[in-house]
Protein backbone atom coordinates (compact mmCIF):
# COMPACT_ATOMS: atom_id res chain seq x y z
CA UNK A 1 0.00 0.00 0.00
CA UNK A 2 1.08 3.56 -0.61
CA UNK A 3 0.14 6.96 0.79
CA UNK A 4 -0.18 9.54 -1.96
CA UNK A 5 0.27 13.09 -0.67
CA UNK A 6 -0.43 16.04 -2.92
CA UNK A 7 0.15 19.73 -2.20
CA UNK A 8 -1.98 21.69 -4.66
CA UNK A 9 -3.42 25.12 -5.27
CA UNK A 10 -6.61 25.53 -3.19
CA UNK A 11 -8.80 26.42 -6.17
CA UNK A 12 -7.77 23.15 -7.91
CA UNK A 13 -9.22 20.99 -5.11
CA UNK A 14 -12.59 20.42 -6.79
CA UNK A 15 -10.99 19.37 -10.09
CA UNK A 16 -8.63 16.95 -8.36
CA UNK A 17 -11.41 15.51 -6.22
CA UNK A 18 -13.63 14.89 -9.26
CA UNK A 19 -10.77 13.31 -11.20
CA UNK A 20 -9.93 10.96 -8.31
CA UNK A 21 -13.58 9.99 -7.90
CA UNK A 22 -13.78 9.30 -11.65
CA UNK A 23 -10.72 7.04 -11.29
CA UNK A 24 -12.50 5.14 -8.53
CA UNK A 25 -10.90 6.49 -5.38
CA UNK A 26 -13.44 6.27 -2.53
CA UNK A 27 -11.98 8.42 0.20
CA UNK A 28 -9.42 11.08 0.92
CA UNK A 29 -8.24 13.46 3.62
CA UNK A 30 -7.94 17.16 2.84
CA UNK A 31 -6.30 19.76 5.06
CA UNK A 32 -5.36 23.39 4.73
CA UNK A 33 -1.65 23.92 4.52
CA UNK A 34 0.74 26.77 3.87
CA UNK A 35 4.16 26.81 2.41
CA UNK A 36 6.27 27.86 -0.52
CA UNK A 37 8.41 26.38 -3.22
CA UNK A 38 10.37 28.11 -5.93
CA UNK A 39 7.61 30.69 -6.48
CA UNK A 40 8.13 32.09 -2.93
CA UNK A 41 5.42 34.29 -1.43
CA UNK A 42 4.09 37.72 -2.33
CA UNK A 43 4.24 41.28 -1.02
CA UNK A 44 1.30 43.15 0.55
CA UNK A 45 1.22 46.90 1.21
CA UNK A 46 -0.63 48.43 4.19
CA UNK A 47 -0.67 52.22 4.43
CA UNK A 48 2.52 52.25 2.41
CA UNK A 49 4.31 49.65 4.58
CA UNK A 50 5.37 46.56 2.62
CA UNK A 51 5.17 43.10 4.13
CA UNK A 52 6.47 39.95 2.49
CA UNK A 53 4.09 37.04 2.93
CA UNK A 54 6.39 34.01 2.57
CA UNK A 55 3.91 31.22 3.13
CA UNK A 56 1.19 30.82 0.53
CA UNK A 57 -2.08 29.02 1.26
CA UNK A 58 -2.14 25.46 -0.15
CA UNK A 59 -4.29 22.36 0.19
CA UNK A 60 -2.81 19.03 1.27
CA UNK A 61 -4.65 15.99 -0.04
CA UNK A 62 -3.88 12.48 1.14
CA UNK A 63 -5.09 9.21 -0.37
CA UNK A 64 -4.26 5.63 0.62
CA UNK A 65 -4.03 3.32 -2.41
CA UNK A 66 -2.93 -0.15 -3.47
CA UNK A 67 0.65 -0.41 -4.75
CA UNK A 68 -0.63 -1.07 -8.28
CA UNK A 69 -2.70 2.13 -8.33
CA UNK A 70 -0.06 4.49 -6.96
CA UNK A 71 1.52 5.65 -10.20
CA UNK A 72 -1.84 6.06 -11.93
CA UNK A 73 -3.22 8.09 -9.03
CA UNK A 74 -0.20 10.37 -9.11
CA UNK A 75 -0.83 10.91 -12.81
CA UNK A 76 -4.51 11.68 -12.18
CA UNK A 77 -3.62 14.30 -9.57
CA UNK A 78 -0.90 15.89 -11.70
CA UNK A 79 -3.19 16.12 -14.69
CA UNK A 80 -6.08 17.62 -12.73
CA UNK A 81 -4.04 20.06 -10.65
CA UNK A 82 -1.89 21.42 -13.44
CA UNK A 83 -2.19 25.05 -14.53
CA UNK A 84 1.32 25.14 -16.03
CA UNK A 85 2.24 28.12 -13.88
CA UNK A 86 4.73 28.32 -11.06
CA UNK A 87 3.33 27.22 -7.68
CA UNK A 88 1.22 24.29 -8.91
CA UNK A 89 2.52 22.06 -6.13
CA UNK A 90 4.00 18.58 -5.62
CA UNK A 91 2.78 14.99 -5.42
CA UNK A 92 4.69 12.14 -3.79
CA UNK A 93 4.12 8.63 -2.48
CA UNK A 94 5.47 6.77 0.52
CA UNK A 95 5.11 3.08 1.42
CA UNK A 96 2.60 2.34 4.17
CA UNK A 97 3.15 -0.41 6.77
CA UNK A 98 -0.33 -1.11 8.03
CA UNK A 99 -3.85 0.17 7.43
CA UNK A 100 -6.77 -0.73 9.70
CA UNK A 101 -10.45 0.23 9.32
CA UNK A 102 -11.55 1.44 12.72
CA UNK A 103 -15.19 0.35 12.39
CA UNK A 104 -14.57 -3.32 11.57
CA UNK A 105 -10.96 -3.93 12.44
CA UNK A 106 -10.14 -5.11 8.88
CA UNK A 107 -6.44 -5.00 8.05
CA UNK A 108 -4.39 -4.42 4.91
CA UNK A 109 -5.76 -3.82 1.40
CA UNK A 110 -9.28 -4.81 2.58
CA UNK A 111 -9.30 -1.73 4.77
CA UNK A 112 -8.72 0.68 1.87
Amino acid sequence: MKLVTAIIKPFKLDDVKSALEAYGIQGMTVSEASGYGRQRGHTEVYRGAEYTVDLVPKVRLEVLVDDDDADAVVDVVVKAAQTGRIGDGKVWTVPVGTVARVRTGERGPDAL
Partner: protein
Amino acid sequence: MELNSGDTAWVLASTALVLLMTPGLAFFYGGMTKAKSTLNMMMMSFATICVVSVLWVVYGFSLAFGDSGSAFYGSFSLSGLSDAVGELTNNGGVYGIPLLAFAGFQLMFAIITPALISGAIADRAKFVTWVVFVVLWVTIVYFPVAHWVFDFGTVSENGDVTGKGWLANLGVLDFAGGTAVHINAGAAGLALAIVLGRRIGFKKSPNRPHSLPLVLLGAGLLWFGWFGFNAGSALGATDTAALALLNTQVATAAGLGGWLIVEKLRDGHPTSLGAASGAVAGLVAITPACAFVAPWAAVVLGVIAGALCALAVGLKYKLNYDDSLDVVGVHLVGGIIGCLFIGFFSTTQVNEFGADGVFYGGGWELLGKQAIGAFSVLAYSLIVTLILGFLLEKTIGFRVSKDDELQGLDLTEHLESAYDFEGTLGGTFAGTSSSHKEKVAAKTEEVSA
Protein backbone atom coordinates in the same frame (compact mmCIF):
# COMPACT_ATOMS: atom_id res chain seq x y z
CA MET B 1 -35.29 83.54 23.52
CA GLU B 2 -37.76 80.66 23.53
CA LEU B 3 -36.88 77.01 23.23
CA ASN B 4 -36.82 76.07 19.53
CA SER B 5 -38.09 72.53 19.08
CA GLY B 6 -36.62 72.09 15.58
CA ASP B 7 -33.14 73.15 16.67
CA THR B 8 -33.39 71.07 19.80
CA ALA B 9 -34.46 68.00 17.84
CA TRP B 10 -31.45 68.30 15.54
CA VAL B 11 -28.99 68.72 18.42
CA LEU B 12 -30.49 65.74 20.27
CA ALA B 13 -30.27 63.60 17.12
CA SER B 14 -26.71 64.82 16.50
CA THR B 15 -25.75 63.85 20.05
CA ALA B 16 -26.75 60.24 19.34
CA LEU B 17 -24.90 60.36 16.00
CA VAL B 18 -21.68 61.53 17.63
CA LEU B 19 -21.91 58.87 20.35
CA LEU B 20 -21.98 56.21 17.60
CA MET B 21 -18.61 57.45 16.37
CA THR B 22 -16.80 56.01 19.38
CA PRO B 23 -18.01 52.40 18.88
CA GLY B 24 -17.31 53.06 15.19
CA LEU B 25 -13.79 54.07 16.12
CA ALA B 26 -13.50 50.88 18.19
CA PHE B 27 -14.22 48.84 15.04
CA PHE B 28 -11.96 51.03 12.89
CA TYR B 29 -9.05 50.55 15.30
CA GLY B 30 -10.02 47.02 16.36
CA GLY B 31 -9.80 45.71 12.81
CA MET B 32 -6.34 47.19 12.38
CA THR B 33 -4.75 45.48 15.38
CA LYS B 34 -3.65 41.87 15.68
CA ALA B 35 -6.38 39.30 16.32
CA LYS B 36 -4.89 38.61 19.77
CA SER B 37 -5.38 42.14 21.07
CA THR B 38 -8.40 43.44 19.17
CA LEU B 39 -10.75 43.28 22.18
CA ASN B 40 -8.29 45.34 24.19
CA MET B 41 -8.23 47.94 21.44
CA MET B 42 -12.02 48.12 21.36
CA MET B 43 -12.25 48.17 25.16
CA MET B 44 -10.06 51.27 25.29
CA SER B 45 -12.80 53.12 23.37
CA PHE B 46 -15.69 51.66 25.36
CA ALA B 47 -13.96 52.39 28.68
CA THR B 48 -13.57 55.99 27.55
CA ILE B 49 -17.35 56.25 27.08
CA CYS B 50 -17.78 55.07 30.66
CA VAL B 51 -15.14 57.25 32.31
CA VAL B 52 -15.77 60.52 30.51
CA SER B 53 -19.57 60.34 30.80
CA VAL B 54 -19.32 60.05 34.57
CA LEU B 55 -16.68 62.78 34.89
CA TRP B 56 -18.73 65.05 32.61
CA VAL B 57 -21.61 65.12 35.09
CA VAL B 58 -19.38 65.42 38.14
CA TYR B 59 -17.22 68.31 36.94
CA GLY B 60 -16.23 67.91 33.28
CA PHE B 61 -18.88 70.01 31.59
CA SER B 62 -18.46 72.65 34.24
CA LEU B 63 -14.68 72.76 33.88
CA ALA B 64 -15.08 73.24 30.13
CA PHE B 65 -18.11 75.50 29.93
CA GLY B 66 -18.88 76.72 33.47
CA ASP B 67 -18.72 80.48 33.79
CA SER B 68 -15.45 81.41 35.46
CA GLY B 69 -14.37 84.65 33.88
CA SER B 70 -11.19 82.84 32.82
CA ALA B 71 -9.98 82.42 29.24
CA PHE B 72 -8.22 79.16 30.12
CA TYR B 73 -10.62 77.02 32.12
CA GLY B 74 -14.22 76.93 33.33
CA SER B 75 -15.39 76.55 36.88
CA PHE B 76 -17.08 74.05 39.15
CA SER B 77 -20.30 76.09 39.20
CA LEU B 78 -22.28 73.50 37.20
CA SER B 79 -20.89 70.40 38.98
CA GLY B 80 -23.54 67.71 39.12
CA LEU B 81 -25.45 69.48 36.35
CA SER B 82 -28.54 70.01 38.53
CA ASP B 83 -28.33 73.78 37.97
CA ALA B 84 -28.33 73.20 34.20
CA VAL B 85 -31.79 71.64 34.19
CA GLY B 86 -34.35 73.91 32.55
CA GLU B 87 -31.75 76.41 31.33
CA LEU B 88 -31.17 77.44 27.74
CA THR B 89 -27.71 77.27 26.15
CA ASN B 90 -25.71 80.46 26.53
CA ASN B 91 -22.47 80.23 24.58
CA GLY B 92 -21.52 83.50 22.96
CA GLY B 93 -25.25 84.24 22.74
CA VAL B 94 -28.42 82.44 23.82
CA TYR B 95 -29.54 79.50 21.69
CA GLY B 96 -33.05 78.05 21.70
CA ILE B 97 -31.81 74.66 22.87
CA PRO B 98 -31.69 73.32 26.42
CA LEU B 99 -28.33 73.59 28.19
CA LEU B 100 -28.59 69.86 28.86
CA ALA B 101 -28.81 69.18 25.10
CA PHE B 102 -25.63 71.22 24.63
CA ALA B 103 -24.00 69.41 27.55
CA GLY B 104 -24.93 66.03 26.07
CA PHE B 105 -23.70 67.01 22.62
CA GLN B 106 -20.37 68.31 23.93
CA LEU B 107 -19.97 65.19 26.08
CA MET B 108 -19.70 63.07 22.94
CA PHE B 109 -16.74 65.19 21.78
CA ALA B 110 -15.08 64.76 25.17
CA ILE B 111 -15.53 60.98 24.82
CA ILE B 112 -14.14 60.47 21.35
CA THR B 113 -11.06 62.67 21.80
CA PRO B 114 -9.25 60.43 24.31
CA ALA B 115 -10.56 57.36 22.47
CA LEU B 116 -8.74 58.59 19.36
CA ILE B 117 -5.44 58.58 21.27
CA SER B 118 -5.67 54.84 21.97
CA GLY B 119 -4.73 53.98 18.38
CA ALA B 120 -1.18 55.18 19.02
CA ILE B 121 -0.53 52.58 21.71
CA ALA B 122 -2.17 49.46 20.27
CA ASP B 123 -1.12 45.99 21.52
CA ARG B 124 0.93 47.17 24.51
CA ALA B 125 -0.89 49.34 27.09
CA LYS B 126 -2.08 48.19 30.51
CA PHE B 127 -5.84 48.55 30.54
CA VAL B 128 -6.14 49.88 34.10
CA THR B 129 -3.44 52.47 33.44
CA TRP B 130 -5.33 53.51 30.31
CA VAL B 131 -8.43 54.16 32.42
CA VAL B 132 -6.43 56.22 34.92
CA PHE B 133 -4.81 58.06 32.02
CA VAL B 134 -8.20 58.99 30.54
CA VAL B 135 -9.41 60.38 33.89
CA LEU B 136 -6.32 62.57 34.25
CA TRP B 137 -5.96 63.51 30.58
CA VAL B 138 -9.48 64.82 30.08
CA THR B 139 -9.21 66.72 33.37
CA ILE B 140 -5.97 68.56 32.64
CA VAL B 141 -5.95 68.58 28.84
CA TYR B 142 -9.33 68.12 27.16
CA PHE B 143 -11.64 70.08 29.49
CA PRO B 144 -9.41 73.19 29.51
CA VAL B 145 -8.68 73.03 25.76
CA ALA B 146 -12.39 72.65 25.03
CA HIS B 147 -12.84 75.86 27.02
CA TRP B 148 -10.16 77.62 24.94
CA VAL B 149 -11.81 76.68 21.66
CA PHE B 150 -15.51 76.01 22.18
CA ASP B 151 -16.48 78.43 24.95
CA PHE B 152 -17.65 81.71 23.41
CA GLY B 153 -18.46 83.14 26.79
CA THR B 154 -21.59 83.71 28.82
CA VAL B 155 -23.53 86.68 27.55
CA SER B 156 -25.38 88.57 30.28
CA GLU B 157 -28.59 90.59 29.73
CA ASN B 158 -26.67 93.85 29.35
CA GLY B 159 -24.42 92.30 26.68
CA ASP B 160 -21.30 91.63 28.76
CA VAL B 161 -19.38 88.52 27.72
CA THR B 162 -17.48 86.64 30.41
CA GLY B 163 -15.30 83.55 30.34
CA LYS B 164 -14.65 83.43 26.62
CA GLY B 165 -11.94 80.92 25.72
CA TRP B 166 -8.68 82.54 24.61
CA LEU B 167 -8.58 80.90 21.19
CA ALA B 168 -12.25 81.66 20.57
CA ASN B 169 -11.55 85.24 21.66
CA LEU B 170 -8.54 85.45 19.33
CA GLY B 171 -10.81 84.67 16.40
CA VAL B 172 -9.45 81.21 15.57
CA LEU B 173 -12.01 79.51 13.33
CA ASP B 174 -12.58 75.92 14.37
CA PHE B 175 -16.17 74.92 13.73
CA ALA B 176 -16.30 71.39 15.11
CA GLY B 177 -12.97 70.60 16.74
CA GLY B 178 -9.99 70.43 14.39
CA THR B 179 -7.88 71.80 17.24
CA ALA B 180 -9.57 70.66 20.45
CA VAL B 181 -10.36 67.17 19.15
CA HIS B 182 -8.03 66.12 16.34
CA ILE B 183 -4.81 68.07 16.84
CA ASN B 184 -5.24 67.53 20.57
CA ALA B 185 -5.65 63.74 20.21
CA GLY B 186 -2.96 63.49 17.54
CA ALA B 187 -0.36 65.29 19.66
CA ALA B 188 -1.27 63.21 22.71
CA GLY B 189 -1.00 60.06 20.59
CA LEU B 190 2.51 61.07 19.55
CA ALA B 191 3.41 61.66 23.20
CA LEU B 192 2.13 58.24 24.33
CA ALA B 193 3.81 56.46 21.40
CA ILE B 194 7.06 57.99 22.64
CA VAL B 195 6.39 57.12 26.29
CA LEU B 196 5.39 53.49 25.66
CA GLY B 197 7.98 52.82 22.98
CA ARG B 198 7.83 50.60 19.95
CA ARG B 199 6.00 47.29 19.82
CA ILE B 200 8.07 44.11 19.74
CA GLY B 201 8.73 43.45 16.08
CA PHE B 202 8.19 47.03 14.90
CA LYS B 203 9.42 47.23 11.28
CA LYS B 204 10.13 43.46 11.36
CA SER B 205 7.04 41.36 11.87
CA PRO B 206 4.01 42.17 9.74
CA ASN B 207 1.73 44.26 11.95
CA ARG B 208 -0.94 44.07 9.33
CA PRO B 209 -4.66 44.53 10.09
CA HIS B 210 -6.33 41.32 11.22
CA SER B 211 -9.74 42.25 9.78
CA LEU B 212 -10.14 44.85 7.06
CA PRO B 213 -13.94 44.39 6.90
CA LEU B 214 -14.06 45.60 10.54
CA VAL B 215 -11.94 48.61 9.58
CA LEU B 216 -14.36 49.47 6.75
CA LEU B 217 -17.36 48.98 9.04
CA GLY B 218 -15.78 51.34 11.54
CA ALA B 219 -14.98 53.92 8.87
CA GLY B 220 -18.61 53.77 7.71
CA LEU B 221 -19.94 54.30 11.23
CA LEU B 222 -17.51 57.18 11.78
CA TRP B 223 -18.60 58.80 8.52
CA PHE B 224 -22.29 58.45 9.48
CA GLY B 225 -21.78 59.81 12.98
CA TRP B 226 -19.60 62.65 11.73
CA PHE B 227 -22.66 64.38 10.22
CA GLY B 228 -23.77 64.94 13.81
CA PHE B 229 -20.26 66.00 14.82
CA ASN B 230 -19.96 68.69 12.14
CA ALA B 231 -23.51 69.69 11.20
CA GLY B 232 -24.67 69.35 14.81
CA SER B 233 -22.07 71.92 15.81
CA ALA B 234 -24.30 74.55 14.20
CA LEU B 235 -26.44 73.97 17.33
CA GLY B 236 -29.55 74.30 15.23
CA ALA B 237 -31.37 73.08 12.12
CA THR B 238 -30.00 75.97 10.08
CA ASP B 239 -28.44 76.68 6.69
CA THR B 240 -25.06 76.58 8.42
CA ALA B 241 -25.86 73.00 9.44
CA ALA B 242 -26.74 72.16 5.85
CA LEU B 243 -23.48 73.65 4.59
CA ALA B 244 -21.50 71.73 7.22
CA LEU B 245 -23.28 68.49 6.35
CA LEU B 246 -22.73 68.77 2.61
CA ASN B 247 -19.10 69.85 3.03
CA THR B 248 -18.54 66.87 5.32
CA GLN B 249 -19.85 64.48 2.68
CA VAL B 250 -17.86 65.83 -0.26
CA ALA B 251 -14.60 66.37 1.60
CA THR B 252 -14.74 62.80 2.92
CA ALA B 253 -15.43 61.37 -0.51
CA ALA B 254 -12.57 63.42 -1.94
CA GLY B 255 -10.25 62.35 0.88
CA LEU B 256 -10.98 58.71 0.10
CA GLY B 257 -10.14 59.36 -3.54
CA GLY B 258 -6.99 61.35 -2.74
CA TRP B 259 -5.54 58.54 -0.64
CA LEU B 260 -6.32 55.91 -3.28
CA ILE B 261 -4.71 57.97 -6.04
CA VAL B 262 -1.48 58.17 -4.02
CA GLU B 263 -1.56 54.41 -3.47
CA LYS B 264 -2.26 53.62 -7.10
CA LEU B 265 0.60 55.82 -8.28
CA ARG B 266 3.08 54.84 -5.58
CA ASP B 267 2.29 51.18 -4.79
CA GLY B 268 0.36 50.04 -7.83
CA HIS B 269 -2.81 48.99 -6.00
CA PRO B 270 -5.58 51.02 -4.35
CA THR B 271 -6.33 49.28 -1.01
CA SER B 272 -9.40 48.99 1.20
CA LEU B 273 -7.34 50.18 4.18
CA GLY B 274 -6.40 53.21 2.10
CA ALA B 275 -10.06 53.90 1.30
CA ALA B 276 -11.03 53.76 4.98
CA SER B 277 -8.03 55.87 6.00
CA GLY B 278 -8.59 58.46 3.25
CA ALA B 279 -12.22 58.88 4.28
CA VAL B 280 -11.19 59.51 7.89
CA ALA B 281 -8.45 61.93 6.77
CA GLY B 282 -11.09 63.85 4.79
CA LEU B 283 -13.42 63.87 7.79
CA VAL B 284 -10.70 65.15 10.10
CA ALA B 285 -9.62 67.94 7.75
CA ILE B 286 -13.14 69.22 7.05
CA THR B 287 -14.05 69.25 10.76
CA PRO B 288 -12.73 72.74 11.56
CA ALA B 289 -13.56 74.09 8.09
CA CYS B 290 -17.00 72.61 7.40
CA ALA B 291 -19.03 75.79 8.02
CA PHE B 292 -16.54 78.32 6.65
CA VAL B 293 -15.72 77.17 3.12
CA ALA B 294 -17.70 76.66 -0.09
CA PRO B 295 -18.51 73.06 -1.11
CA TRP B 296 -16.06 73.14 -4.04
CA ALA B 297 -13.31 74.19 -1.61
CA ALA B 298 -14.29 71.29 0.63
CA VAL B 299 -13.54 68.94 -2.29
CA VAL B 300 -10.12 70.55 -2.72
CA LEU B 301 -9.46 70.21 1.03
CA GLY B 302 -10.51 66.56 0.99
CA VAL B 303 -8.18 65.62 -1.86
CA ILE B 304 -5.25 67.47 -0.26
CA ALA B 305 -5.88 65.86 3.13
CA GLY B 306 -6.29 62.36 1.69
CA ALA B 307 -3.11 62.62 -0.36
CA LEU B 308 -0.93 64.29 2.29
CA CYS B 309 -2.06 61.95 5.08
CA ALA B 310 -1.31 58.96 2.81
CA LEU B 311 2.24 60.27 2.59
CA ALA B 312 2.44 61.30 6.26
CA VAL B 313 1.68 57.85 7.69
CA GLY B 314 5.05 56.63 6.35
CA LEU B 315 6.95 59.12 8.52
CA LYS B 316 6.85 56.92 11.62
CA TYR B 317 9.11 54.38 9.93
CA LYS B 318 11.66 57.09 9.16
CA LEU B 319 11.39 58.78 12.57
CA ASN B 320 11.23 55.43 14.36
CA TYR B 321 8.26 55.92 16.65
CA ASP B 322 5.47 53.36 16.69
CA ASP B 323 2.24 55.32 16.33
CA SER B 324 0.60 51.97 15.69
CA LEU B 325 -2.62 52.99 13.94
CA ASP B 326 -1.47 56.39 12.63
CA VAL B 327 -3.19 58.79 15.02
CA VAL B 328 -0.46 61.31 14.21
CA GLY B 329 -0.44 60.77 10.45
CA VAL B 330 -4.21 61.07 10.14
CA HIS B 331 -5.54 63.17 13.05
CA LEU B 332 -2.64 65.51 13.82
CA VAL B 333 -1.66 66.06 10.19
CA GLY B 334 -5.27 66.13 8.94
CA GLY B 335 -6.27 68.52 11.74
CA ILE B 336 -3.42 70.92 10.92
CA ILE B 337 -4.25 70.80 7.20
CA GLY B 338 -7.91 71.64 7.92
CA CYS B 339 -7.07 74.47 10.33
CA LEU B 340 -4.58 76.13 8.00
CA PHE B 341 -6.79 75.61 4.94
CA ILE B 342 -9.36 77.89 6.58
CA GLY B 343 -6.75 80.65 6.52
CA PHE B 344 -6.75 80.49 2.71
CA PHE B 345 -10.27 79.46 1.69
CA SER B 346 -12.57 80.76 4.43
CA THR B 347 -15.18 83.19 3.11
CA THR B 348 -17.93 85.27 4.64
CA GLN B 349 -19.94 84.62 1.46
CA VAL B 350 -20.97 81.25 2.90
CA ASN B 351 -21.00 82.17 6.60
CA GLU B 352 -21.30 85.71 7.91
CA PHE B 353 -19.89 84.62 11.27
CA GLY B 354 -16.71 83.36 9.60
CA ALA B 355 -13.90 85.48 8.15
CA ASP B 356 -12.20 86.01 4.81
CA GLY B 357 -9.03 84.06 4.15
CA VAL B 358 -6.09 84.86 1.88
CA PHE B 359 -7.95 84.02 -1.32
CA TYR B 360 -10.96 86.19 -0.40
CA GLY B 361 -9.15 89.43 0.32
CA GLY B 362 -8.79 88.88 4.04
CA GLY B 363 -4.99 88.97 3.98
CA TRP B 364 -2.72 86.82 6.12
CA GLU B 365 -4.25 87.70 9.47
CA LEU B 366 -6.66 84.75 9.64
CA LEU B 367 -3.97 82.28 8.59
CA GLY B 368 -1.77 83.56 11.41
CA LYS B 369 -4.58 83.04 13.93
CA GLN B 370 -5.25 79.56 12.60
CA ALA B 371 -1.57 78.69 12.99
CA ILE B 372 -1.57 79.99 16.58
CA GLY B 373 -4.68 77.92 17.34
CA ALA B 374 -3.28 74.74 15.79
CA PHE B 375 0.21 74.93 17.27
CA SER B 376 -0.74 76.14 20.74
CA VAL B 377 -3.07 73.14 21.18
CA LEU B 378 -0.41 70.86 19.68
CA ALA B 379 2.28 72.10 22.04
CA TYR B 380 0.11 72.05 25.18
CA SER B 381 -1.22 68.56 24.49
CA LEU B 382 2.17 67.13 23.53
CA ILE B 383 4.02 68.50 26.55
CA VAL B 384 1.37 67.77 29.18
CA THR B 385 0.72 64.27 27.80
CA LEU B 386 4.44 63.47 27.76
CA ILE B 387 4.73 64.43 31.43
CA LEU B 388 1.54 62.60 32.38
CA GLY B 389 2.53 59.50 30.41
CA PHE B 390 6.00 59.31 31.97
CA LEU B 391 4.57 59.76 35.47
CA LEU B 392 2.14 56.88 34.93
CA GLU B 393 4.85 54.68 33.40
CA LYS B 394 7.15 55.34 36.39
CA THR B 395 4.45 54.80 39.03
CA ILE B 396 1.80 52.22 38.10
CA GLY B 397 3.40 51.23 34.79
CA PHE B 398 1.85 51.91 31.39
CA ARG B 399 3.38 49.22 29.20
CA VAL B 400 2.62 45.53 29.65
CA SER B 401 5.38 42.95 30.13
CA LYS B 402 7.10 41.42 27.11
CA ASP B 403 5.42 38.07 27.78
CA ASP B 404 1.97 39.64 27.93
CA GLU B 405 2.58 41.56 24.73
CA LEU B 406 3.56 38.36 22.90
CA GLN B 407 0.66 36.44 24.42
CA GLY B 408 -1.80 39.13 23.30
CA LEU B 409 -3.67 41.62 25.47
CA ASP B 410 -7.10 40.06 25.02
CA LEU B 411 -6.02 37.15 27.15
CA THR B 412 -3.72 38.91 29.61
CA GLU B 413 -5.77 42.07 30.23
CA HIS B 414 -9.32 40.72 29.81
CA LEU B 415 -9.11 36.90 29.93
CA GLU B 416 -11.08 36.64 26.69
CA SER B 417 -10.56 35.71 23.05
CA ALA B 418 -12.10 37.69 20.22
CA TYR B 419 -12.75 34.72 17.97
CA ASP B 420 -13.74 31.11 18.59
CA PHE B 421 -13.31 29.03 15.48
CA GLU B 422 -14.38 25.82 17.28
CA GLY B 423 -11.10 24.15 16.46
CA THR B 424 -9.37 21.61 18.64
CA LEU B 425 -8.95 24.29 21.32
CA GLY B 426 -12.60 24.24 22.48
CA GLY B 427 -13.18 24.15 26.24
CA THR B 428 -15.78 22.73 28.59
CA PHE B 429 -18.32 24.50 30.76
CA ALA B 430 -16.81 24.98 34.19
CA GLY B 431 -19.58 26.40 36.36
CA THR B 432 -20.84 29.93 36.89
CA SER B 433 -18.57 32.86 37.50
CA SER B 434 -19.13 33.22 41.25
CA SER B 435 -16.18 31.03 42.10
CA HIS B 436 -14.20 32.10 39.05
CA LYS B 437 -11.44 33.94 40.88
CA GLU B 438 -10.64 30.99 43.13
CA LYS B 439 -10.56 28.68 40.14
CA VAL B 440 -8.19 30.94 38.24
CA ALA B 441 -5.97 31.18 41.32
CA ALA B 442 -6.01 27.41 41.80
CA LYS B 443 -5.25 26.85 38.14
CA THR B 444 -2.36 29.28 38.23
CA GLU B 445 -0.94 27.52 41.29
CA GLU B 446 -1.33 24.17 39.60
CA VAL B 447 0.46 25.35 36.47
CA SER B 448 3.32 26.99 38.33
CA ALA B 449 3.76 24.00 40.67
